[in-house]
């Protein structure tokens, strides 16, 4: 969306907001949302070589809403067990430490950051895209015979700057004024979400490869990433594939195959076909997080 396509009043308002937010972001004069406590603790437990599942289980049990969501996801078709999951302990045993940690982290981040009153539908779409990117990221890494562990986290957090921008816009506008159009907000998101995401990732002290993926995942910049985990390039392609999961009508296989990122990952047509075939499975998994 270009500024030229908005009316002069809106354009002036967008430019004023853009300018104010850019200054705030660059000067780090922002009140950034804190990483939800549970997510922080999940990250700590995941990164602790001596941590075991009992610590994670205890943490989840402290948060009733989180425990409920974990139970629901464990019972969803994507993770369906042979018999219904009826207890948290059972869901922990069924899902396993790594999935559980990922779920706890994502659910916690979703409830902490991906919630903005008045824009629920748009935020839900962003969240859906992020989840699909995380799930596709794992499959891309696997296809590349690369370790898949980092790809999910990079994917679900790569657009963390987008909901943050919405938060910041609302902070910077008069509560009495009419709600801003999504077109206006989206224009500012396109301009500033990468910068905002980078700042938030730094403030949250996310793992370095994840910070790098957030900063460099777009097509124009993934080649600037240096981490051997390849989070940025993997997330770049995952984001394109995820768009087709969120909006199946937008899928243009030929256009995706022609992207430079496909060439840079050295994916041949048969590799891409295999990834396209996963669309429904990914879609099902995304729904299991959201329904």
């Amino acid at each position, binding site marked *: 969306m270009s500024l030229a396509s908005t009316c002069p009043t809106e354009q002036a308002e967008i430019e004023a907001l853009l300018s104010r937010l850019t200054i705030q972001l660059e000067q780090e004069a922002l009140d950034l949302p804190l990483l939800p406590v549970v997510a922080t603790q999940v990250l700590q437990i995941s990164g602790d070589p001596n941590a075991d*599942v009992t610590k994670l289980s205890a943490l989840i049990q402290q948060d009733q809403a989180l425990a409920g969501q974990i139970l629901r996801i464990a019972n969803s078709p994507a993770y369906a067990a042979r018999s219904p999951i009826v207890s948290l302990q059972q869901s922990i045993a069924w899902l396993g430490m790594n999935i559980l940690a990922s779920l706890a982290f994502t659910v916690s981040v979703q409830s902490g950051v991906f919630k903005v009153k008045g824009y629920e539908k748009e935020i839900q779409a962003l969240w859906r895209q992020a989840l699909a990117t995380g799930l596709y990221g794992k499959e891309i890494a696997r296809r590349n015979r690369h370790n898949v562990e980092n790809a999910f986290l990079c994917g679900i957090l790569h657009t963390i700057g987008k909901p943050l921008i919405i938060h910041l816009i609302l902070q910077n506008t008069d509560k009495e004024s009419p709600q801003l159009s999504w077109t206006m907000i989206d224009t500012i998101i396109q301009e500033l979400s990468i910068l905002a995401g980078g700042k938030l990732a730094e403030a949250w002290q996310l793992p370095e490869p994840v910070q790098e993926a957030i900063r460099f995942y777009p097509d124009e910049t993934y080649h600037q990433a240096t981490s*051997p985990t390849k989070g940025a390039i993997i997330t770049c392609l995952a984001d394109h594939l995820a768009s087709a999961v969120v909006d199946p009508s937008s899928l243009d296989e030929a256009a995706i195959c022609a992207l430079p990122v496909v060439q840079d990952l050295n994916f041949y*047509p048969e590799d891409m076909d295999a990834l396209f075939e996963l669309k429904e499975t990914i879609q099902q998994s995304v729904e299991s997080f959201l329904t």
Partner: protein
Amino acid sequence: MTSSSSYDLIVIGSGPAGQKAAIQGAKAGKHVALIEQTREVGGACVYQGTIPSKTLRETALKMVQFLHATDVFDFRMRDDLKIASLMTRLDKVVRAHGEFMAEQISRNGIDRFHGRAQFQSDREIKVQGLDGKPTMLSAPLLVIATGSRPRVPDNIPIDHENILDSDSILSLVYLPKSLTVLGGGVIASEYASIFALLGVQVTMIDTADRPLKFMDKELTDQFCEAFEKTGGSYRGQQKIQSAQWDGFSKVITQLGNGETFESEKMLVALGRVANIEHLNVQAAGLTPTARGLVSVNDHCQTTVNHIYAVGDVIGPPSLASCSMEQGRRAVCHALKLDSGDVPEHIPMGIYTIPEMSSVGLSEQEAIDQYGGALVGRANFQEIARGQISGMTNGLLKMIVDTNGEKLLGVHIVGEGATELIHIGQMGLLHNIHIDRFVENIFNFPTLAETYRVAALDIAKQRKK
């Protein structure tokens, strides 16, 4: 209409074997095409094999030396920094080596094609690019050098997350607490010893009674001793019934005898398979062997006279050093150029911790061929250089004929073994008398002195 180009020589694969074949062709004035299916040249050797594992090993050794110097430096390294440092250095070395190889190819005027090669006939190749578009190439001479990749056993679900192969282990994001290594060959032993040194609890499981069964037993005994000192363990003569992620927190390995092992991660290193599935070799009149290899004669010539095959795609020894020589010699043979004498004594280097290397005959082979053998030994810790470097293990074995005069083989375990072996290799090539090792002067203090000590040990036996 598909574009088509003619060349004097087409080489498929740009690993050590393919690269040397292409360069040899170019140096002979031929118009050469080099086809590579990955973006970068260098093959698995540069990106998943030789260079990465050796770099990891070197970095791990340096890091551990640094961590042990706590009486000088008061610090502690975070675990996440440990793996990040390892991988970042690895990435830098790999990139540098890849760039160097690409430059060498371009300097020699070789045309590079990025895509998958597929035989259309015994002289025509279709190169399918990433965009799916084909390019047709033809030549009167072709070299297959497509290398190999890790074998995926039917009963082990490698997911590159919990159960890894030797490619995906190179992109670990943290050091696991424990690692089960399936296999007892070179790749298994190298990675097992590197991760054990880094503090990971490593268990190697294999059917053989000892790792690296083709190496001298005294060498592998010292390797096992050092491996166990770092907390590793080797479980030999075991059949693997199954190995799988429990879907929860660990990989469970069930052995044939009913025993089970648990670990956070697993590395499956049960051999490699040749990359020939996309080649359509049948169109060229070739039939792969039962093991999926391309069979060749002593000149690396296939059953179709003008098609050669070199490197991992023809099977053992699968050493980068041998592959390079195979590539060079194959093209020399095809172009009727003098390739020099056939290498008689090819050294084998294994980058375990400690290193192992050997050249020439083993003790048993010497006994079989010469009706007996004398063995001279030198322990590294008896040598001044060994003491200075704090080496607690290390051994050089010289195998000689029963007269104690003719050198037949050298076997070394200990740091620097892969470099030190070349003195023995030169001795073998020039048939030098054992006494030459005693009569000549080596730098002092160096590990080269082990040759003198071992030769003296032999001389002592000879006098009896």
